[in-house]
């Protein structure tokens, strides 16, 4: 009995000492080694036809950073961010802006695009119609607009931006894209 009591006391004492004195001294954060990009879920592949009639697959854009933007000409926030995308495309040629419009009204879409004079000078901005939301809703589960998905050079899904979350033409965002482009 006495031995048992002693054992319990020693055990409790040991645990307490471990808790108070056994804690490791806080270490300064160690620089993380530059590792390869984390494994990301792959973006599903899909075909799309741009307004000028050329057909692509998303997978054909591998090797470039893609900003997959879901938008509509009737959506005011989408119109607000459109010039930012154009400014970004002008600055970063390794980034493709794939703007999929969910407009039902093709004429309204074409009219909006025609008003964007700079667009013709930017081959890295691709505009296509996703009339039945076959890509936006059925593949990417997007029902509210605008939403933009950042896809890395390997076709991996990096991040989703909902609404007017960032200024696409800001140096901060471009810095993030550069970091993504330079990641091994």
């Amino acid at each position, binding site marked *: *009995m006495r031995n*048992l*009591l002693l054992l*319990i*006391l020693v055990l*409790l004492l040991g*645990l*307490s000492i471990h*808790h108070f004195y056994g804690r490791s001294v806080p270490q300064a954060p160690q620089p993380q080694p530059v590792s390869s990009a984390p494994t990301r*879920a792959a*973006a*599903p592949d899909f075909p799309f036809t741009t307004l000028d009639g050329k057909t692509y697959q998303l997978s054909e854009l591998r090797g470039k950073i893609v900003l997959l933007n879901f938008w*509509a000409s*009737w959506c005011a926030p989408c119109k607000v961010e459109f010039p930012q995308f154009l400014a970004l495309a002008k600055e970063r040629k390794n980034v493709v802006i794939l703007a999929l419009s*969910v407009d*039902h*009204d093709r004429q309204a879409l074409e009219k909006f695009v025609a008003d964007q004079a700079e667009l013709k000078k930017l081959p890295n901005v691709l505009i296509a119609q996703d009339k*039945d*939301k076959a890509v936006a*809703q*059925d*593949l*990417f*589960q*997007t*029902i*509210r607009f605008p*939403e933009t998905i950042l896809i890395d050079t390997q076709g991996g*899904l990096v*991040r*989703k931006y*909902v*609404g007017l979350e960032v200024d696409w033409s800001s140096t901060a965002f471009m810095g993030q894209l550069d970091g993504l482009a330079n990641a091994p």
Partner: protein
Amino acid sequence: MRVWLFALLLLLPICAQSQELDYQIFRTLPVLEDGRLKPLDSFAVHMRTRISGSATLDDRPAIAWLAQTLFDPAQAAQERVFYIRNAHIRAQFELPSRTNHLYSLTELAPRLEESAKSVTALLTRELASLTADEQDLRDLHTAILIYNQLLQSFSLLLPLPFAAPPEAKLNGAYTYLDAQKVEPKLMQNLQKLLTPKVLAHPETLTPAQQQLAAFVHDLQKLREGGTNNQLLRILPASWAEQKGEWFAPWQLLLSGQGSPTTQRLLELWQQLAQAYRSGDATRWLQASQELHEQMQKLVGTADERLLLEVLLRDLHVLDVTALFLVLAMGLIASHRRWPRAYSASLIAAALSAASLSTVLLVRSYILARPPVGTLHESVLFVALILLLGTLLITVRRRMPGLALAGQVGTLALLLVAPFVHSDSENMTMLSAVLNTNFWLTVHVLCITAGYGACAATAALAHVHLITFKTASDPHGRLALLHRCSLMALLLTAVGTLLGGVWADQSWGRFWGWDPKENGALIIVLWLMWLQHARLAGQVSELAFTAGMAALGVVVAQAWFGVNLLGTGLHSYGFIQGIALGLFSYTLLNLMLIAGLWWRAKRGSHA
């Protein structure tokens, strides 16, 4: 291990069959509730208990009830699920009197809006200031709110009951997600229609135009209903920024957190819904299996915990524990006729202890924390210590009386356990203040082991009182009681001190005369007083024994009684509704001790 658990689960011939659909896989799907991932089966049991007051109202398992609620809400609204015993509330809702006191949402609906107004006013008041009727009304509305959320969880992917206008081109059964695709176009059409002139005279709209307006309105109402629907969190976040978060279907879509992964998951849920509605058992099983596989990839090893939780419920391990105890008690009662019954009883008690340990260990593994985190678990742990303590003594010394007392005490604690926590079935996460695994292990285990040692000491003292004059070795028994009480004193004293150190770290003070702290101190003082009085010769052996027998009452008051006060910093332990039980136990035990003391004293005079 996961494979074995899954195989075992599929072998169990349990509640899972209903309407020829196999719920075995479906019930293991993960859902986030109360801060932890749990199997859908536990969610179903918890929801049904919250809504109906019990998870076993009829022969139908809770998971089948949940499936109907989620996938066939129109039928579910007709089901009698609300338990309304209060006659005033029944009168308020103009409900007929029924023996089972169960009513459906459809029956409640006509008076719901009117009643909701009074509940809104009640919500602004303190719970303690509400009358019993008002509390019941508030609870009923909470249950209705929960039920409504469940009914609408999948309203985005179930067929809609209202007709679509022809220009929507939605032929046959269509869902909100189908309608959502054409909604912008319909909205544009409607906006063109609704000129100021038409708005002034809406009767000028043609029936087709009215149908269009009604349709767009219904879609908006449906979406509004889904806006705050966050109950059924079955979809894990896909995007790094939301890592660890889980979403309900509406919540995911409306917050823009959808992804190709969650799209696939929602498609599978839709397949489940379709299979349920058509009663297609093969399709149901396929969709369940595929969904389970997909979720397994996403939750990883957590899947093992989900399977264990379902198994723990299915195997009724606590019932097995109680059965072994009853067997042990039966055997010990017959040990005079059959000498081997004593050993057999100890074996049965050991099996019971093993079974109870399994419950505590599995709960600990499932919740990934030390075994005693709630009042319910503390009762189970004290029961285990009591059983093990008395078993240890009775293995070394032949004491049938103590064996029986320990088994009766353990069984009583097991029977009491569900009542000290209304939500004991639902393994709840810890309050933030308790969520420190080191202290939870050291302090709580130490103090509850102390309570268990006190219970064993009290049991021994009762037996000693009963056989005070007839025991063959009274001095040996008294020495044993003395040693048991020393063990109880050590554990409770060290546990109390450790609690002070934890309080110092958590709350910034060692001691605050909090009721719970005072309770623990009273146990220590009681033990110390009796020990010192005995050593100093101030109390007789009989008084010492009676005092130790009363230790059970002291512990009960310090353990449960202080929780009834509802004050102090130990708010995570507050309980209600056990006052009468506690008072009865205290009174009866004190009367028993007084009776035994009087009998022993009378015997000594004779």
